[in-house]
C-alpha cells in the first residue's frame, strides 16, 4: 500500500474486497460440487451429474432448495442466540481471508496494487485470533437449541477446538522464528521460488501438525465428532433448518478454503512456483501469481476431500490423546530444535533435517509409552484373542 493516492486506495480496496468475498462464496459452491463428485469418484459411483453439464449447477439447485425451505424456529430454543449463532460461525470464516496475500502485486494505470485486502503487521496473530472465535457460533448454537444431542456436540466441539488451537498456534512458531516476522506477505516472500526452500520441508513435523490441527478446527471428517451422525443425530446443528443450516454448511467450507489458503501462505510458498510468477511483465505476473496461489489452494482442498474418504472418525478419547500426546509434543520439540539449530548453525538444511529426525524420535517415544501404558481392553472378545491393543492406543 505504498504511496497510493487516497482515491486509488479506496477504489482498489473495494474492488479487492468484492473480488475475494465473491471468490470465496463461489469457491464454496465449487467445493460443494467437487466434494460430491470427488466422493463419487473415490467410491466408484457417479455423484450428482444431472443439473447442468456434469452436475455443475447442483450447488445452485441446493441453494434454491435451502432458500425455499420453511425457516423453522422450534418453540423450545433460546431465540436470540439461536438466530445469532449461524452468523457467528459464518463471519469469522469470511473475515479471515482479509489478511491472506493471494498474489504478488498487479500494476493498473501506473499504480502498483498488492493483491491483499489488508496488509497488517500482525497478520498471523489476526488469523489466530479470528479462528479462535469460530467456536462461539458452534457452542452457542448448540446451547441455544436446547437439545441434548446438540449440547453434547457443542461440548465436544469446544473441548476439541481449545485443544487443537494450541497445536495450531505452536506449529507456526518455528516458521515465525526463521522469518522473524508476523507479516504474512513477508513470510510468503521469504520462502522464495523453489519448492525445496519452502517451509513445509524445513518444518516438516510442524507442517503435519498444523495441517492436522486445521482439520480439527474445521470439524472435517477424521475429527467431526461435534456432528457425528451415528451418535448425535447431526450434532450442534440438529435443530437448524433452511438458510440457517445453509450458513453452518457454508461456514464449514469457507473454513476449509481459508485454512488451505493460510497453509499455502505459511508452508507451501504462497504464490511462488519456480519463478513462473515473475514472467509476463507487471500486469500478467500478478495474474499468474494469483493463478499459482489458486491452484495450490485447490490442490490442498482436494486433499481435504481425499482424507475424508480415507480415514475413519476418531473416538473421543483418541481425539484428545492424539491432540495432547502426539501433536503437542511434536510441535514443542519442533520449536526447541528449530531455535537451537538455527542459533548454532544458521543453516536451513540442518534445521530441516533436525526437525524431521526430532519429530520422528518424539513420535516413536510417545507411541512406545502409549503401548506400554495401554490398559488391556475390559471387554475382550474371547473369540478373537489377538485384539490389537497396541493399535488401539496408537490410533
Amino acid at each position, binding site marked *: 500500500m505504498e504511496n497510493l493516492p487516497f482515491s486509488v486506495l479506496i477504489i482498489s480496496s473495494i474492488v479487492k474486497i468484492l473480488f475475494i468475498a465473491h471468490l470465496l462464496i463461489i469457491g464454496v459452491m465449487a467445493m460443494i460440487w467437487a466434494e460430491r463428485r470427488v466422493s463419487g469418484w473415490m467410491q466408484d459411483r457417479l455423484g450428482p451429474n444431472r443439473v447442468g453439464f456434469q452436475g455443475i449447477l447442483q450447488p445452485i439447485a441446493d441453494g434454491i432448495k435451502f432458500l425455499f425451505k420453511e425457516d423453522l424456529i422450534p418453540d423450545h430454543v433460546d431465540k436470540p*442466540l439461536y438466530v445469532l449463532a449461524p452468523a457467528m460461525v459464518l463471519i469469522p470464516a469470511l473475515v479471515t481471508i482479509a489478511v491472506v496475500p493471494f498474489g504478488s502485486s498487479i500494476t493498473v494505470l501506473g499504480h502498483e496494487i498488492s493483491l491483499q485486502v489488508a496488509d*497488517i*503487521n*500482525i497478520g498471523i*496473530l*489476526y488469523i*489466530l*485470533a*479470528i479462528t*479462535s*472465535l469460530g*467456536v*462461539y457460533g458452534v*457452542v*452457542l448454537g*448448540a*446451547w441455544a437449541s436446547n437439545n441434548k444431542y446438540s*449440547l453434547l456436540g*457443542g*461440548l465436544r466441539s*469446544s*473441548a476439541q*477446538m*481449545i485443544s487443537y*488451537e494450541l497445536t495450531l*498456534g505452536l506449529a507456526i512458531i518455528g516458521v515465525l522464528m526463521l522469518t522473524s516476522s*508476523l507479516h504474512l506477505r513477508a513470510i510468503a516472500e521469504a520462502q522464495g521460488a523453489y519448492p525445496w526452500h519452502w517451509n513445509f520441508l524445513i518444518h516438516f513435523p510442524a507442517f503435519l501438525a498444523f495441517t492436522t490441527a486445521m482439520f480439527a478446527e474445521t470439524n472435517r471428517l477424521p475429527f467431526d465428532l461435534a456432528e457425528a451422525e451415528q451418535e448425535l443425530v447431526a450434532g450442534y446443528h440438529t435443530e437448524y433448518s433452511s438458510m440457517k443450516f445453509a450458513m453452518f454448511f457454508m461456514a464449514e467450507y469457507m473454513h476449509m478454503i481459508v485454512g488451505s489458503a493460510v497453509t499455502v501462505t505459511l508452508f507451501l510458498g504462497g504464490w511462488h512456483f519456480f519463478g513462473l510468477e515473475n514472467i509476463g511483465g507487471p500486469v500478467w505476473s500478478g495474474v499468474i501469481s494469483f493463478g499459482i496461489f489458486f491452484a495450490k489452494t485447490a490442490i490442498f482442498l482436494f486433499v481435504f476431500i481425499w482424507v475424508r474418504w480415507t480415514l475413519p472418525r476418531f473416538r473421543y478419547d483418541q481425539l484428545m490423546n492424539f491432540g495432547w500426546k502426539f501433536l503437542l509434543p511434536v510441535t514443542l520439540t519442533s520449536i526447541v530444535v528449530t531455535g537451537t539449530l538455527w542459533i548454532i548453525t544458521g543453516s536451513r538444511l540442518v534445521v530441516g533435517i533436525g526437525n524431521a529426525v526430532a519429530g520422528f524420535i518424539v513420535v516413536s517415544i510417545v507411541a512406545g509409552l502409549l503401548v506400554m501404558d495401554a490398559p488391556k481392553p475390559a471387554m475382550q472378545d474371547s473369540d478373537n484373542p489377538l485384539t490389537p491393543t497396541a493399535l488401539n492406543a496408537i490410533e
Partner: protein
Amino acid sequence: MNAEQILFILFGAVSLIGAVAVISFRHPIYSALSLVVTFFAQAGLFLLLGAHFVAAVQVIVYAGAIMVLFLFVIMLLNLGTLSVKGAIGGKLKGFAIILGILLAIEGIYIATNVLNNTAIAAAQPATAAPNTTTYDIGELLFSKYLLPFEVTSLILLAALIGVIVLVKRSSNDSI
C-alpha cells in the same frame, strides 16, 4: 471531533455497556457473551493506543480461550435450569451501589487530578509517541523482565498441576 475521538467514544461506550450487561443479565451465558463484547471493545481501544500485539493477544487469550472455558463450564453444569437466586436483597444492593459510585468518583478524581502531579504527566509525549512493535515487547520481555517471565511460567505450571489434582480427586470421589 476527529476519527480517533469518535472511535474512542464508540469503543468506550460499547465496553461500558457490555460491562454493565455482565452484572445485570440473569443468565450466566448472556453475561459471558456481554463480557466477550467488552473484551472486543477493549481490543479496539488497544488498537487505538497503538498496541497491536496486545490487542491481538487480548482477543486470542480472553475471547478465544478464557471465555470459551467459562461457556464450557456453564454448559457443563447446566446452570440455566438451576437459577441461582441472582442477586442480594434490596437494602444491601443499594449499599453496594453507593459504595461503587464512591469508588468511581475516587477513580475519576485520581485519573484527572492526582496523576497530573506525577512523572506520567511530566513525560507527556502523549499523541506523538510511536507505535510500540512486537519486537519492542519481545526485547523487554526477554531482557529486563526475564525473571518475572520465568516466574509467570512457574505460575502457569502450578495452575496446571493444581487443576489436575482438583479434577483427579473429584473424579475418584464420584467412583
